[in-house]
């Protein structure tokens, strides 16, 4: 079903109105407590950022992405391995699952200072922190995927004559892949947020550092501008992941 063009127009109008009100209120200086900058300032800052006028510019973004991607990969690999190990060995699952669930309930973002203390302001520190969040997401995705495999598919391929290896390849791997792909978007959104978050806490590089410096000098345009760049990157990658998910999940009923 196609959307009526009036709705698209209304969406655009709403966004435009938002920026307009922001511009008017921001430049009127209603209160000095309410430092919200103006869209003009923010876009001017973003322009300056892109040409490297105020900060290290693109290299900050590159570092943040590097941390997020490294942490993401590390966490996913670790999560998959642990899930296969624990789900494949029932007594182990019964022994440790309550502890895994409890660990998952810990607000993991609060572990950031621990990583900062241990690993300093390195890229590795951020990657480790990111992976500590991602590992839970991928672990539960794969663990639940393995646990929820329908017996009828296993019976079916066994009757068709599948050996153990074939069963893994034809049933277990596709089932895990489906769940992993579904968890990919969640993992990614946490990866980026976690990388910026820990940069903000302690760092001398990266987008989180830019935000932190901006906040210290009460420069609303810097803070908002940097966050906007991160948001745009997050949304673009997310859109890419959605496309990938569609391709990988073609077999799944809509």
């Amino acid at each position, binding site marked *: 079903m196609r959307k009526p063009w009036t709705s698209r127009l209304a969406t655009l109008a709403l966004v435009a109105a938002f920026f307009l009100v922001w511009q008017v209120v921001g430049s009127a200086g209603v209160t000095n407590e309410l430092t919200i900058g103006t869209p003009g300032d923010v876009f001017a800052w973003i322009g300056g950022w892109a040409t490297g006028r105020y900060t290290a510019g693109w290299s900050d973004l590159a570092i943040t992405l590097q941390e997020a991607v490294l942490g993401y990969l590390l966490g996913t690999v670790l999560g998959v391995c642990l899930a296969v190990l624990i789900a494949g060995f029932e007594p182990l699952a019964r022994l440790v699952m309550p502890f895994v669930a409890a660990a998952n309930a810990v607000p993991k973002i609060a572990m950031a200072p621990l990583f900062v203390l241990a690993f300093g302001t390195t890229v590795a520190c951020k990657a480790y922190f990111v992976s500590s969040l991602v590992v839970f997401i991928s672990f539960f995705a794969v663990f639940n995927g393995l646990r929820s495999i329908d017996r009828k598919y296993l019976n*079916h391929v*066994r009757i068709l004559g599948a050996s153990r290896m074939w069963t893994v390849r*034809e049933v277990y791997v596709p089932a895990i892949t489906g769940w992993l792909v579904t968890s990919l978007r969640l993992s990614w959104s946490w990866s980026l947020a976690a990388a910026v978050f820990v940069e903000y806490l302690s760092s001398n590089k990266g987008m989180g550092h830019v935000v932190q410096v901006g906040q210290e000098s009460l420069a609303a345009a810097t803070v908002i501008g940097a966050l906007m760049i991160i948001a745009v990157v997050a949304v673009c990658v997310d859109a890419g992941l959605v496309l990938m998910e569609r391709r990988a999940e073609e077999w799944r009923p809509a």
Partner: protein
Amino acid sequence: MTLRADGRLLEFDGVSQRYPSPTDRAADFVAVRDITLQIPAGEFVSVVGPTGCGKSTLLSAISGLRPASEGQVRIGGDVVTGIRSDVGFIFQQDALLPWRTALQNVELGLRFRGLPRAAARDWLARVGLAEFEDRYPHQLSGGMRKRVAVASTLVYEPDILLMDEPFSALDIQTRTLMENDLLHVWEEAGKNTVIFVTHDLEEAIGMSDRILVMTASPGRILGDYRVDLPRPRDLLEVKMTDEFAEIYRAIWKDLSGEVIAANKLRIPGAVGT
């Protein structure tokens, strides 16, 4: 009736299937009890009986998904102890892998055995789905999915084909069409031994050479009927004949008593009680 010359005999020798209760043996659930029978190669046998009489248990015992707990099931003299490569099984529910296309699903059994996959395309065409090779199961209708399931089983030429109410989820028109087409491809494939579990007596008579009637739980063989209608058959025509009606009446007499027993009903003055 011509049987496959090279085929092997399927034998049940005092077979019982017991599902152990966790507490004590007296409370074990006995699904089927003391079944002894012989099925020559190439015979199309239907098993009918009230719900829960252990029809599906028989199939599990033949396929090796759950070998018999007492007695022996033998195929050509070999005792069934595990999954066998010469048995095919079409389940009641859809069991096609949802992440594989129709063609890939038909290829599975060939790939597992390391056989060339060329036959898959041919079999998909034989069940009338040549144009649907690249569709995923969710993009096919229920009837088409059953056709893929039939092709994916017959493609590796199992000696024995087990079917557990394969068409019960289909609407009545699709079902008649499927039954006719199944008979056709079965005859074309050179007649595997078929054990066909169904609730539907008309379906059973129309398709089979022989019908086994089972008792209410725990299941035993109550009646063993021959159906000597000529092949090849057209199901719509067969159902109009007098022979058909005669066999139907005879079997229904056995069956209705068991259905009433299974439902624990007491109907005053009812026929067959």
